[in-house]
């Protein structure tokens, strides 16, 4: 975000998300998460720890809410909306509701405009970038994230989280963040970067399925699908299309009310890049 950049692109920046935003997108990485297939097993979360050098903070810091899980699996006990009874049942008869929650890579992200040093910004790939080394730790972005998916390095975890030789496991494709830096899910940008480099070396475009994020790759049930939504042949684009979820809107006007796709906090007009598919429950037993 240089001054020159702003001046040159001023009218572009004023374009809303519904007009495709201000970028000429190369890719628009997105996800579709089928909650009917999510079994809440945490494989995605642990895969994320392994891929992204996430610090293990330990019990006392976890208790303080300083954990660093970029991808957390939330578990709710809500009964589905299908039951009209107002009495709280004695048993969770429809099981639990699991929700893998990671950075939604909003296209109108609330975290981006508030960063004083532009350490977080929107890339031409449709991602919320977080440039660790630019971050000064004002933490405004995290405050302004309705999903609460930005995690701050409240301490320097290098010694405590990776005592020798655990540090040898660290992925050299991304940094270990020191204290005072905000971090969050990047859609495994190091993998995106590697795939794009590889594609460029061969003078082609990145193909669907060539790579995926660590969470999607691990997911035993294949509930998480990752890909480029600009590539219409990609699995993720097809899912978005099939479930009639549109970008750039804060309310989906679906013709068919039974299409299962939705986005969380769409009404805040943040335009997330993660679509969830409704959980299905056989309630007729």
């Amino acid at each position, binding site marked *: 975000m*240089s001054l020159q950049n702003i001046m040159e692109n001023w009218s572009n920046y004023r374009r809303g998300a519904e007009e495709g935003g201000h970028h000429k997108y190369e890719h628009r990485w997105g996800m579709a998460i089928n909650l009917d297939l999510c079994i809440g097993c945490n494989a995605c979360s642990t895969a994320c720890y392994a891929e992204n050098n996430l610090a293990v903070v330990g019990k006392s*810091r976890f208790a303080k809410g*300083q954990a660093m899980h970029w991808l*957390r699996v939330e578990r709710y006990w809500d009964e589905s909306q299908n039951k009209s009874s107002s009495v709280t049942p004695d048993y969770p008869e429809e099981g639990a509701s699991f929700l893998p929650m990671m950075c939604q890579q909003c296209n109108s992200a609330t975290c981006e405009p*508030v960063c004083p040093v532009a350490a977080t910004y929107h890339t031409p790939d449709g991602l919320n970038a977080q440039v660790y080394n630019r971050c000064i730790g004002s933490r405004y972005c995290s405050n302004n994230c309705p999903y609460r998916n930005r995690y701050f*390095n*409240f301490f320097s975890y290098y010694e405590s989280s990776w005592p020798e030789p655990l540090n040898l496991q660290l992925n050299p494709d991304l940094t270990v963040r020191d204290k*005072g*830096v905000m971090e969050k899910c990047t859609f495994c940008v190091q993998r995106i970067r590697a795939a794009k480099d590889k594609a460029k070396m061969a003078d082609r475009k990145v193909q669907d399925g060539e790579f995926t994020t660590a969470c999607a790759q691990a997911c035993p049930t294949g509930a998480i699908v990752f890909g480029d939504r600009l590539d219409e042949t990609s699995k993720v684009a097809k899912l978005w299309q099939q479930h009639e979820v549109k970008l750039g809107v804060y309310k989906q006007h679906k013709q068919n009310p039974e299409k299962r796709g939705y986005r969380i906090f769409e009404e*805040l007009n943040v335009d997330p890049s993660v679509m969830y598919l409704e959980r299905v429950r056989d309630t007729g037993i």
Partner: protein
Amino acid sequence: MIEKDIDEQIKWAKINADVLRSMENPRRAYWITFFICIAMMACAVTAEIYQYNTGMGVTNLNNPHMWDMYIASFVFWIGMSHSGTLLSAILHIIHADWRKPIYRFAEAMTTFSLMTAGFFPMIHLGRVWNLYWVLPYVSDRGAWPNFRSPLVWDAFAISTYLSASMLFLFIGMIPDLAICRDNARGWRRKLYTVLSLGWIGSDRQWRNFRKTYLLMACFLIPLAVSVHSIVSSDFAMSIMPGWHVTSFPPYFVAGALYSGCAAIITLFVMLRYYFRFEEYMTVAIMEKTAKLTFAIAMVWTYLNLIEFASTWYGHDIYAKELLIAKAVGPYSWIFWTMLFCGMVVPFALAVEKFRRHMPTMFVVSLLLNLSMYFERWMIVAPTLSMSHDPHQWDIMWPSIVQWAIVFGSFGWFGLLFLVFVKVFPSVSMYEVKEMVFHRRRLINEDAAKVYSRRARDRKDATGEPELEGA
């Protein structure tokens, strides 16, 4: 009974003597206070060193609570800075001359609270050593701050306001510094010689001085209003329930004036007591200040209620939930204390008996500022505790590190103020003289009218009333 703001018969030499006396030979109480302030600061410095080395986590901040007391204190101190300069400038423009004995320390307060407030964004930064990145500067990296971020606006606003208020304070002090220069010896003389910029009190100097001062006052009023509006946009520009409020700018400005007025009353009482300034900081002026405070309190109350009402009848369910949570949740005791001290206690200011009773006013002013501190904390913390995602809700209480630093900030402020009152005249000598002069003239004119009428009527006037020479 209409009481005089100041005894217009006061001798000018006495004014000089009184004020200059306040600047020398600190008494024991001064030193005790001074060292208490140093000790408070030491707490803060220790805590900050610890926090700097260990990481922000020692403050108990966590995932939903990325901000807490530091930001609340920042807003508090910024608010505190408002009345000094703003009120001084407004009252100057509207020729409310009762401001004259009290504006100097109020302006000093502005400057020092800004200097205190400025620390908090730095203390709260995760990587403070990169603070300069929020400033636009040309570098080969071509990296600029994000001009869309309210935090960058803050940096501009606060630095502008700080320099402008310091300038305003300094300009207003020049004639006094000349008096000091003429009465001082040793290092003080050198200092005042430099600072008084060769003031000799010539007509030209006075003319330029008045113009400059008026201009500065005119410049400062919109600036001060904008500063706190910008601070409010730290919150109002966000999407969070309880922050995303349209009325925040006026609400913040009102709150700022409110806390500033309350602080003026506090310091008023203290200075009056410490320096025996009863003749300058009179009960009448206190009454006027108190009335002004009351008016501002009512504005604040109104804006508060408006905010509640618009949330209550509004469409934002998250904000509504939050409002209810504030009132009945774990922070409710703070919420209700804030409302009680901020809305009910000020009615004490409406009672003349209380207004005239200095100890009462002292206590009331402290309560008002307590309310104002709570108000800032109630803005910052509950929103973060209970925002959109209930999975990440959390109730957090600040750790001792935060307390120590906030506590220490009062020490720092006190220290600056204590140094100020001994180095600079905390009551404007020349303006008190002006005030006295104007009052006398008014009296004289009144008297002259009376006498001339009498003379006309009775033709047996005994002569002119006795006038004292300058």
